[in-house]
Each structure stands twice: as C-alpha cells, then as structure tokens.
C-alpha cells in the first residue's frame, strides 16, 4: 500500500457504527477520517468503534482527529472505542497517553458489546 493511502469503511451494528481504518492515518489523510466521523455526528450516531486491524501507521495528526470529537461524542451519550490495534500503533497511542482516555479492546465484537452492557 502506498504511503499516502488510507481507507475508511463504515459498518453499522444497530446503533453502533464501526469505522474500519486501513493504511496510513497521518497529516495527509486525517481530513478523510475527520469527514467519516463528521458524517456519523450529522446522523446523530454517537456510538463508534474504530477498528485498527488494517492500520499500519498513525501520526499525531491522526490522533488529533480522535481528540477533536471525543468531547462532543461523550456529551451526547456516546463514545469512541478502539479495537484491534497492532503493537506499533499501540506504542504511539501509549506514548502520547491515549490509553487513559480511550478504551482499547482486543476485538471488534468486544468493543461493540461494551456499548450494550453500559
């Protein structure tokens, strides 16, 4: 996959939307991801799971997108839960202190289920 490539696909499970992200989420591709989240907000869908399984790289700008929406999402009774991060990506999350702010799950289903139980 090209360095500049990034893909986001959405799948809805009732009121939970899963955004599967793929490739490189960096300064260049962040606007694309921002757009995907904005679309969910416009449809009042505040329960989100971001699936990192196919994400190769994330930079600060990519993380910034998460920061930009979390308050609004939580204010509306939703959350952004993260799932299936590879070690490299997790390391960056960890370095910047994200694990204290976001729930991170091993599997996509676990993250979806978490919305059901709480």
């Amino acid at each position, binding site marked *: 996959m090209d360095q500049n490539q990034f893909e986001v696909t959405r799948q809805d499970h009732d009121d939970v939307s899963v955004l599967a992200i793929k490739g490189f989420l960096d300064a260049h591709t962040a606007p694309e991801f921002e757009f995907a989240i904005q679309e969910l907000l416009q449809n009042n869908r505040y329960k989100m799971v971001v699936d990192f399984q196919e994400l190769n790289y994330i930079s*600060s*700008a990519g*993380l910034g997108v998460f920061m*930009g929406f979390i308050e609004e999402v939580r*204010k509306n009774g939703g959350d952004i839960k993260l799932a299936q991060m590879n070690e490299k990506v997790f390391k960056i999350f960890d370095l910047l202190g994200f694990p204290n702010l976001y729930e991170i799950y091993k599997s996509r289903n676990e993250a979806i289920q978490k919305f059901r139980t709480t």
Partner: protein
Amino acid sequence: MENTEFENLKIRYLELTSLFETNKILNASLDLRAILNNLLLTSMGRLMIGQGVVFIRDEKSLYKIAAAKGFSPGRLGQTFFVETALETPLYISEMPCKGDQFCQFLKENNLQIVVPIISNGRLIGILGFGKKFIQSDYKPEEIDFLQSLADSAAIAVDKSLLFDELKKTNRKLDKKIQELNTLFEISRELNATLEIQKIVNVLSFTIMGELLINKCLIILYEKGLPKVKVIRGVGMKPEPVEENLNNPEVQYDFLQKPVHQLGGKILSKHGLSALREAGIEYLVSMTAKNELKGLIGIGRKITGEELSETELGFLETLANDAVNAIENGRMVEQMLEKQRMEEELKIARDIQQRLLPDSFPQLEWIEIAAVNHSCHHVGGDSYDCIALDSGDLGISIADVSGKSTPAALLMANLQASLRALAIERKPVHECVGRINHLIYQNTASDKYITFFYGELSALKKTLTYTNAGHNAPILFHRDGRYRFLQTGGIILGMMNHVAYEEETVPLNSGDVLVLYTDGITEALNAHEEEFGEERLIQVIKENRTASAQEMVDRIIAAVESFSEGMDQADDMTLIVVRLKEI
C-alpha cells in the same frame, strides 16, 4: 537436647532453602513490584509476621512505600523523609525518634523492626515488619535471616530500579522521537500544500493529537484583521474571539512573546474574555518578518496537566513551520488572483472589442470614421453606429465608469438596449430615458454612464440628439461656425424616471460632427496641461475639408504630439461623421 538441635538445623535448612529460592526468583525478575512482593511474602510466611512494608528510595532521602502487606489499602506511594542512617536491623522501640513522620508511621502501625536494603553501600530501601503471630520478640537468628533476605534482594532491587530508570529514559527518548517524527511529517505535509485552509487543519489536528488537547483555535490575520480559520472543541463561536483579538495592543503583546498562558497579566490587561470562556489556555504566536501573522489558541490538556517546557518548545517549532507554509500559500494565492484578474481583463477586452462596430453602414450622404484606443487593456469607452430605415443613421458614444468585466458587461447591455429601441424608431429622448431606467434598475449605484445618442435623418437633413452628461460633441459647419451639442439631461444610472430633452439641429453638406470621450480633451502634456476643447476645435477648423478618416487621423496625431512621452490614463475614443458635399 539432640532433638532440639536437630529441630534448629531443620529450621535453618528451611530458611536456607527459602533464601535460595527467593534469590533465584529475585534475580530472574526485573519487575520491582514482583520482587518486593516476593520479598515480603517470603519473610512474613517464613517467620509468621502479620504486617510487612517496603520503602524504596525515590530520590535523596525520600523513601516511598513500594509494597505493603497487612495494611489498609491506599498506603502505596506515600513518601517519607528518613533521617536515620540505617545500617543494621533495628528494633523500632530502640529507634531514636525525633518525632519525624517516618518514625511516627512505624510506631502508629505497630511495626517492630526495620531492616535496611543496602546495595553498593547505599541504602536503597527499608523493610518494616510488624508483630509475629506466635511470639512477640524477634530472635537474633530471625533477624539474621531477614537481613540475609534483604541482602540477597538488594542487587535485584537495584537492578530493577535501574531497569525502571532505563525504561523511563527510553520512554522519554521514544516520546522525543515521536515528537521529531511529528515535526518532520507535518513540515513535509505543510510544504506539500499551498491551500491555507488545509494547512491550518493539519496543524490543528497535529497539536491536538500530540498534546492531548481537545480545544483548538487557529486565527490568521488578514489585512490586519483577525479571522478564525479553525475552531475545534465544543461551544465556541468565532465572532467574539475575533472581537477580542482585534486590538493593536493585544497584537503588539503577542508579537513580543511566542507563547502566552492566558491568565494573570495578559488577561487583566486585555480582558480576553471570549477566549477564556471558550476554554483557551495558551496562545502561541505565529510571526514572520516581525509581524504577527496568526495565533494558535489551545485548551488545557485533557489530563489537566500544564504544558511542559518541551511541549511549549514543540508548539513554537510547529507554529514557525506553519507560518512559513501559510505565507507561501498566501503568496501563491495572490499570484493566482493576479492571474485570474488578468484573465478576466482579457475576457473583458474581448467583449469590449467585439462590441465596437467593425464596419460602418455604407450611406450615400455620410462618411464615418472612428478610433478607439484603450489604455491598460480595458476601458469603459464605447460607440456604435446603427443603420436605421430610410437611410437614417443612429450614432452613440458612451463612457462607462469603472473598468474590467463589469464595465464591459454594462456596456454590452447598453448597446443591446439602444439597438432594440432605436430600430423601433422610438423618439430619441425616449430611447435615452428608457435606457436610463434600465441601467438604473440593473446596476449598482456606483456605476454610471455618460452617453450621447443622436439620429441623422437623410430626408430632413437634421440631427436629433439627447446628451446624457457626455462631453458635448461638436457640430462644425462649413463656414467655420460650430456648436456644442449639450441638450439632454443627467448621466445614465444616477436617478430613476428622468425626463430627458432632445434637440433637433439642421445639417448641411460639408458639416462635420465630432464625438469624443474625455480621453481626448483631458490628455496631458509634460506640464500637466490638458489638450482641451480649444485645441480640438483648432484642429477641426484647420482640417475642415478633410475626409472623415483624415480628420480622425489628424486629431489623434495632434493629441499624441501634444502629450508625447506621457502615459495616458484614460481611453481615447473619437468618431467623425461628415456630410458628403453634394
């Protein structure tokens, strides 16, 4: 007797076994907590002690509770200043307590004995133990055992402390690398784009992600006015922020210092209430060439911590990178704008050129010649010659205010309306009145037109005209008399429902009608004198018998020689109509 000795040996053996095992476990692990838990559990299990605690040296003489058993929860992390130089195990009852907190803690919790953990001659930790279950006193060999355990744990503890330190340093290093990566990436991205909105978007995301911030504002100064370009975070509106920052003193202060924490002096001085209410905590200046180009406003870190020196430095570097990219973007935008304007001018000129008649009606009794010089590509002059029925001729000249496309379009409008009305043979003053109405309705109040329209009747040999504020055309008779044609009314587009007058004047063969725009009479010479009507009349007089085309050429030649070497500011348009001699 022998039995007791055997028992003692057995106990000794057990102690040695547990020492050996502990040692093995301790040295295999680098996890401090596991080591300390093991140390406590072994001692407490072996000697049946109810309470145990480990203090680990944090820095200098500060010792932190790193593990505890048999205490109420919440003790971990508590730190104490330890004055006593502990070298050997000590009964707490024998400790010289000077009322310090460490001593107090030990006594309050009913601890009996402390054992030093010494590595390389340094006291790196202290073990504290409470009462034994079966007997109250610690026997000397039990104390020996505890000391041996502490000694064997010392190296492992030291090693794991070092390892922790290394881990911390490594993490710091990783963070630094991450920061550098971010700077590298954003600088690459910033340089790859020239779209200012894209630049500020990237900038905001990078800051928020890197510093765990969820409120971000980016303001750019455009022509000295603050404009909010990015606004992220809940419940912020751009207008009050712009109002807050639209103050030369505020701008001056931000130019002096790269990072301001909102609060204290800067707040009381300028009362940046909107920013404060929006939760903005820091403002970072973006400056270039000693000019404030913009500001980055950010909220507190989500963790509630203040920004560290390193983080502030990171912000400054980022702001610098961004301002350069933004300036480049601006330059390109200006270049594109200029290109676009030039393109627009070219289109306008094309429209205008196409509006001018490229040939004149061929009439038996009249010759016509005209010239239109436009300076700076596009002017507001136009003229038209319309062949009417019965060999009559309609002739118009106009000067539209403004230049470029709007003027050209207005001119096209004017010409179309005139042609439609003239061909219907509406009276001249009515044509002009209706055109005025149309122009008034369809243009902004700052657009107006000076306009002259006249119809030459072949049968009656007359000219009927209305002059709406245009430089009065000159009708020159063969005998040298001349008159200015100025009957009409005010310029087009100024007022609605204006009643224009018209005048009819007789024409004779050999008469010359000269229509011109102010570019002719207001042409300047090196002394800043105008060419003027008198010089114009003089040239016409001298060339009374010349053909229409010759007349045009001579007038232009006269104007050009008058204003030689001067850059003319206005367009020049000239039409000469001459009644053929019969």
